[in-house]
């Protein structure tokens, strides 16, 4: 697993056509039959793109395989049936050279099949070159037409109604005649119609004919239905998200317009809306939490609690708090060390918001193996700690006292005119992981918007 992780990291994960990456980090595309550049069914091109080899080699391989009693032909037919057509309405004709080359290889393949049969590699000679060959060509016509019909449908849904195509009708008709005729001649030649079981053979062959003619549309129909259903689910999800976002964003915009005269209030609203959007998109802590945090009940992690506290201070005092949290840990039960730490950090932020006179506050927290360190910093007026009145209990009680009671430590550095930084250090008892996490009894100060489940979203 250590080999080369960068590629996974660099892959755009949203492209539904990409099924994975190779060891160079290039995306591997899902096997489809592209419309552009196809000669018969687009099978060879699709395989060439999927395996990233030259299409010539794939065609040659099919031709050589045809030597073995027509295995190549059979494989081609099967792939044509089961590999879905690539989405795309544009129809690029292959270049004349490529077309000649492709048809040439097909001819060589057919010749090889015949050759193989005459050399005794199989007994299908009479069938392949005879009436069954005709039936196969008819089948190819019909399948090709079904491909086109499907593309037409896509195009119709994309740009509106497209007129009926006469050539399609002729192709189906011709194909049907070839299939029916080929099978009939084959039956007449191979079986004694009057003999016992003749009727059975006729029925079986009729069924084969009907299958060749009808199955292409049936398969496409089923496949399209599946695709439509998936599309519907995605649309519903999108609609839900949109409904939620539009609702809250519109509300905020309305509030902003009403209070346009108060820049402070406008800023506050904009920040709170931004925070909500972010928590929707990237998780409550500004980004997703650490792997394994699923085990933690609810949002009971330090990163989330700090982000919530920062949001609350932002909202109340119209300042900007930028939280950066490295690592994460479980909060533990109510009244735990971590709750005390978050409360102290909140108090430090409130102090900065109230007294610093600069609306920008940095919050940085680092969760290590054995301790959590939080820094709250402003670039405000600063103060001389000795001059702070004894009546101001915020610093002494809410920050220092709280940290001391929980075996932590608070260090305050302040320079008048430069700013203040409060450093909070708390030894850690509960780490994220197998340790049973308790539900906090202290409610979150701000209801955090639920985030979409990461697994659900990424598997979309």
């Amino acid at each position, binding site marked *: 697993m*250590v080999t080369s*992780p960068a590629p996974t*990291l*660099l892959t755009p994960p949203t492209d539904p056509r990409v099924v994975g990456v190779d060891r160079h980090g290039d995306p591997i595309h899902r096997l489809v039959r592209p419309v552009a550049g196809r000669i018969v069914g687009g099978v060879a091109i699709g395989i060439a793109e999927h395996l990233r080899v030259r299409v010539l080699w794939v065609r040659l391989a099919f031709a050589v395989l045809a030597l073995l009693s027509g295995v190549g032909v059979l494989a081609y037919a099967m792939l044509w049936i089961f590999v879905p057509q690539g989405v795309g309405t544009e129809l690029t004709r292959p270049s004349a050279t490529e077309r000649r080359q492709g048809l040439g290889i097909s001819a060589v393949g057919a010749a090889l099949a015949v050759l193989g049969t005459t050399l005794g590699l199989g007994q299908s000679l009479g069938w392949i070159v005879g009436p069954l060959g005709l039936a196969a060509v008819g089948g190819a016509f019909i399948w090709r037409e079904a491909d086109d019909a499907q593309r037409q449908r896509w195009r119709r849904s994309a740009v509106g109604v497209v007129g009926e195509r006469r050539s399609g009708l002729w192709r189906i008709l011709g194909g049907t005649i070839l299939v029916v005729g080929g099978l009939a001649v084959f039956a007449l030649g191979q079986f004694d119609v009057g003999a016992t079981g003749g009727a059975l053979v006729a029925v079986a062959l009729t069924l084969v004919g009907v299958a060749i003619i009808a199955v292409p549309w049936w398969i496409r129909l089923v496949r399209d239905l599946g695709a439509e259903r998936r599309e519907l689910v995605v649309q519903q999800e999108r609609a839900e998200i949109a409904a939620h976002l539009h609702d809250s964003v519109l509300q905020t915009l309305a509030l902003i317009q009403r209070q346009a005269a108060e820049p402070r209030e406008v800023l506050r609203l904009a920040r709170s809306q931004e925070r909500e959007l972010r928590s929707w*998109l*990237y998780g409550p802590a500004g980004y997703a939490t650490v792997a394994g945090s699923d085990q933690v009940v609810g949002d009971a992690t330090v990163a989330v609690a700090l982000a919530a506290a920062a949001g609350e201070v932002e909202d109340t005092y119209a300042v900007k708090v930028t939280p950066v949290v490295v690592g994460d840990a479980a909060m533990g039960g109510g009244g735990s060390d971590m709750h005390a730490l978050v409360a102290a950090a909140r108090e430090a932020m409130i102090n900065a918001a109230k007294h610093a006179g600069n609306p920008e506050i940095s919050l940085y927290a680092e969760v290590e193996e054995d301790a959590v360190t939080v820094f709250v*910093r402003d670039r405000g007026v600063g103060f001389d700690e000795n001059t702070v009145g004894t009546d101001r209990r915020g610093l002494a009680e809410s920050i220092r006292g709280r940290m001391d009671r929980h075996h932590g430590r608070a260090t305050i550095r302040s320079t008048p005119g430069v700013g203040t930084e409060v450093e909070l250090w708390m030894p850690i008892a509960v780490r994220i992981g197998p340790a049973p996490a308790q539900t906090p009894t202290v409610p979150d100060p701000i209801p955090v918007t639920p985030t*979409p489940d990461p697994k659900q979203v990424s598997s979309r």
Partner: protein
Amino acid sequence: MSTPVSVFLVDDHALFRAGVRAELAGLADDRIVVVGEAGTVGEAVVRITAERPAVVLLDVHMPDGGGRAVLQQVHARYPEAVFLALSVSDAAEDVINVIRAGARGYVTKTISATELADAVVRVAGGDAVFSPRLAGFVLDAFSDRPGAAPLVDPELDMLSPREREVLRLLARGYAYKEIASQLFISIKTVETHVSSVLRKTQMSNRYELSRWATDRRLV
């Protein structure tokens, strides 16, 4: 004053491009000059290779592959271009992705015009620009977690204690000058450390780094 740094804007929102342009012009800063802008990946690649700006301000999220596609395509034809990612998305994966694709820095769109101009000048001079959040991401990605895979290349896959300290101070919102005085080193040394961290972030094959970004993939 030497010749101003030429800047090119890439963002799919015309309104935002106009905003940045106006803000940078409003600074009347003779260190930088905006030479062009583009709204799509294709347009950006063509125009950047034609205009040859010193610095490209690159939006991370765009249709047709985003900033990373621009980075890769331009890099093949005009490797001298310096990219500074400018994005509203703080998604860890996006940030690490553009950095690993070759961007010299990452700043969020909420940055003030003055800070943006400083950042542009700094990346043009060969430095790296780490916003507090990016510093946090990188610290997190290089942190040792229990069960981590063994290091392949210790030189690349680990941060030195000094680099860690510098990153921590960056994450705490310190400016280079403040970091220098806090650690009793010169600003030049701070820059060297930051550049070294950038190189490690870009080059490291550290398993943690990729898993870290994948773990945090939400959207």
